[in-house]
């Protein structure tokens, strides 16, 4: 016996992964087509099939892929799924932008090592630092490819970068140079793996990305945030500069405040950007939390980190009502006509 369920019930259980509106429309049809592929018309054989067989892994994967595409909806999806799709796409672009800014910083360090820029400190040499530079440059290409809708290049390159980052963390752990293995692995999962998996939101139904503002955001972030931070550190004011997680907390908080002002002025749009900011803030808060073990020996720094989290929470609370609005009142799914 293979549990109490028969093949049809097992397949229906897989189909529960799909959004309700989609199941209402297609479930019976999908079940009929699925069983047509299994049943032969011989009662004895079909009885055994129904009792013992189960959906193949490929069938389950096809339903999971369909579910991902539907929940992270494209232009023709119901409003709430489209809002989630857009928010995830924007959040992925935001995280990739942060990676790309870091990559530009690595590029500047590399330029310094070639004596192209005189006022930056020289980088360390060797294989592992060079691998770090290479992954930095690769993030720039991943970000630009994603903005230019070359999703395949972005995914393949991002997968390679993930592999390189995982190998780097493993090497450092084996060498005993990691301050907190938990923080390093958690960082890899939250900041690298999760956003790359979320690239699934860039499917063929997704609307095109607004290229100009995203491409301009890269030099703007570097010049307006990274360069002043670097200048402060080089001029002996490093103690006043938050670490990268803290910078991200404050930056996201400032963006939330600006967006909240736009919402209050009635120019906030459909709530998609508020939902985006909530997602980005969640990733940023996780980033801040998983880096806490690095500062446990200094209670003052832990307090600073917690204040940064508090500022982020307050800023996000300002856009949360608008984000919830984007989930309200999903209209009926797109036009499906019954036969006849």
């Amino acid at each position: 016996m293979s549990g109490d369920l028969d093949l049809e019930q097992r397949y229906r259980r897989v189909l529960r992964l799909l959004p309700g509106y989609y199941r209402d429309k297609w479930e019976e049809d999908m079940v009929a087509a699925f069983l047509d592929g299994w049943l032969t018309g011989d009662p004895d054989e079909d009885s055994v099939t129904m009792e013992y067989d189960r959906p193949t892994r490929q069938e389950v994967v096809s339903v999971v892929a369909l579910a991902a595409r539907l929940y992270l909806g494209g232009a023709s999806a119901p409003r709430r799924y489209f809002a989630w799709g857009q928010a995830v796409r924007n959040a992925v672009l935001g995280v990739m932008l942060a990676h790309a800014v870091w990559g530009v910083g690595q590029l500047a360090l590399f330029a310094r090592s070639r004596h192209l820029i005189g006022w930056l400190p020289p980088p360390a040499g060797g294989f592992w630092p060079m691998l770090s530079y290479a992954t930095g440059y690769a993030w720039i290409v991943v970000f630009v490819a994603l903005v230019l809708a070359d999703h395949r290049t972005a995914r393949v390159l991002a997968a390679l970068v993930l592999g390189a980052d995982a190998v780097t963390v493993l090497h450092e752990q084996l060498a005993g140079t990691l301050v907190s293995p938990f923080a390093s692995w958690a960082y890899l999962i939250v900041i690298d793996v999760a956003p790359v998996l979320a690239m699934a939101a860039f499917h063929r139904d997704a609307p095109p990305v607004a290229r100009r503002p995203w491409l301009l955001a890269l030099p703007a972030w570097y010049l307006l945030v990274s360069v002043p931070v670097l200048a402060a550190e080089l001029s002996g004011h490093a103690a006043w500069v938050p670490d990268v997680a803290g910078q991200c907390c404050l930056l996201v908080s400032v963006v939330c405040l600006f967006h909240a002002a736009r919402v209050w002025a009635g120019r906030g749009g459909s709530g998609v950007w508020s939902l985006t900011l909530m997602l980005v803030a969640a990733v940023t808060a996780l980033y801040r939390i998983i880096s806490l073990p690095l500062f446990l020996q200094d209670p003052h720094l832990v307090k600073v980190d917690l204040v940064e989290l508090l500022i982020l929470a307050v800023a996000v609370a300002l856009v949360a009502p608008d984000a919830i609005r984007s989930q309200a009142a999903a209209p009926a799914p797109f036009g499906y006509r019954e036969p006849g």
Partner: protein
Amino acid sequence: MTGQAFFVLTALADGPRHGYGIVREVVELSQGRVKLKIGSLYGVLDRLSADGLIEPDREEAHDGRLRRYYRLTAGGRRALAEEADLRSATARVVRARLGLTGPEAAGAAG
């Protein structure tokens, strides 16, 4: 148009078919290269339906379940013809560049 959508529209070109009928026809059309899973098939059918290229034709009872048949719309027929022309023209260019034009090429290929 994706390869899967092209095959599904082609499977409906000579008459209405139900879900599994489309799967079987696509296997035959593609000489076994494309085996649509049900999740993939209904992703394609959903999109083609939303684009107005296919529509439900009728429902028939079979072993206690309803099979829903789909057919091409006029727009679907037009889109399929345009895509076929495009693919055919592309194939001609490729064959010409590979020096595979003419009856001897057909013989070599066969």
